[in-house]
């Protein structure tokens, strides 16, 4: 690792990531700027960070910013990185929200949104299929997934109790056994 960024540099670095990714691809831009341009982290360190960011609760890209900030400047660094990555897109989104609530009743906007909403619903639907492949050969995993799906979508139970029951059961099943800790 070449250098430790100052707090100021960290904030502006994350601001730059947010600005660059306005067309999409936040995590690719984050790597380009943090690893390739500023050389704050090696590729390997960055990938470790992504692993941690995906493992823990919270939005992946935001967790990644928190990880980068925390590695260099602890809690203060994490909050600065968070502010840097969110400031512009969140302000813009709040402006869009204001516009939406003011214009809500106008027909033209409503008709366009009917289309956009249908496309966005398709994106939501694709999320589960995207990770289905990883579990396709594990019958127990599919069983857990099906039970959670039925509890939420059919029995209309709330997420928190479902996770609090299914989580420990799944963790017990997948607890690594023995020193070799192979597949159960």
């Amino acid at each position: 690792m070449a250098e430790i960024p100052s707090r100021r540099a960290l904030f502006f670095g994350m601001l730059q990531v947010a600005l660059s990714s306005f067309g999409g691809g936040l995590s690719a831009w984050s790597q380009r700027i943090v690893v390739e341009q500023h050389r704050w982290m090696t590729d390997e360190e960055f990938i470790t960070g992504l692993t941690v960011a995906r493992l823990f609760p919270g939005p992946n890209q935001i967790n990644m910013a928190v990880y980068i900030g925390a590695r260099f400047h602890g809690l203060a660094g994490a909050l600065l990185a968070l502010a840097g990555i969110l400031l512009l897109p969140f302000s813009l989104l709040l402006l869009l929200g204001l516009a939406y609530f003011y214009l809500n009743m106008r027909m033209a906007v409503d008709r366009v949104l009917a289309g956009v909403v249908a496309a966005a619903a398709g994106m939501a639907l694709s999320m589960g299929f995207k990770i289905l492949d990883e579990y396709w050969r594990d019958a127990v995993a599919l069983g857990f997934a099906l039970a959670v799906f039925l509890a939420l979508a059919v029995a209309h139970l709330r997420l928190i109790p479902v996770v609090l029951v299914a989580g420990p059961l799944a963790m017990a099943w997948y607890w690594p056994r023995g020193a070799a800790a192979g597949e159960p």
Partner: protein
Amino acid sequence: MSAICHPAQLSDLGNLVAVIGDFLSLSLFSLGGGNTLLAEYHYLSVDKYCWLTNSQFADLYALAEAAPGPSSMIVGLLGMGAAWREGPSWALLSGVAAELAILLPSTLLMVLAALSWNRFQHSPWRIAFERGMGPITLGILFAVGLKILETADRGPAAYGVSVLVCVLMLRTRISPLWFMAVAGVLGGVGWINR
């Protein structure tokens, strides 16, 4: 939908406290990267507190997906909707408070994780958590996808667009912004109704 929904009788400040409390308690349950909480957000804003109608919720979801930045920022919009009847300044305050509330617990946990990763990396707890939460996330994502579909779509044209976009998301690397732009035009000319 809104006919059977009775808004909770809360003062302006009480409403803000409810917003903060509910999002704080959901934060640590946002498994698998963020979108897993969408059905809970729908329950809070449409069913529990009647902040929004069904189609307003769908609109805000689409807005958050289409706008630059992480789509999990929808929480800011929901917070805004929660206080819209109290006027724009309360709405902005509530939007910012909701976003901070959903991010604070997961951020603090993430800071701890970043600082203690080396010790934690080979712990059996981590391995069991990582392997165990995957299938649960899978189940949640399908439930969320179905919920958003029910919330968003009315009529065969809308369902057709959703299924087509879903297939294209899985089979191609086209940016989702294109899907939303094309579908927006189709909606604008009146092909997709609700």
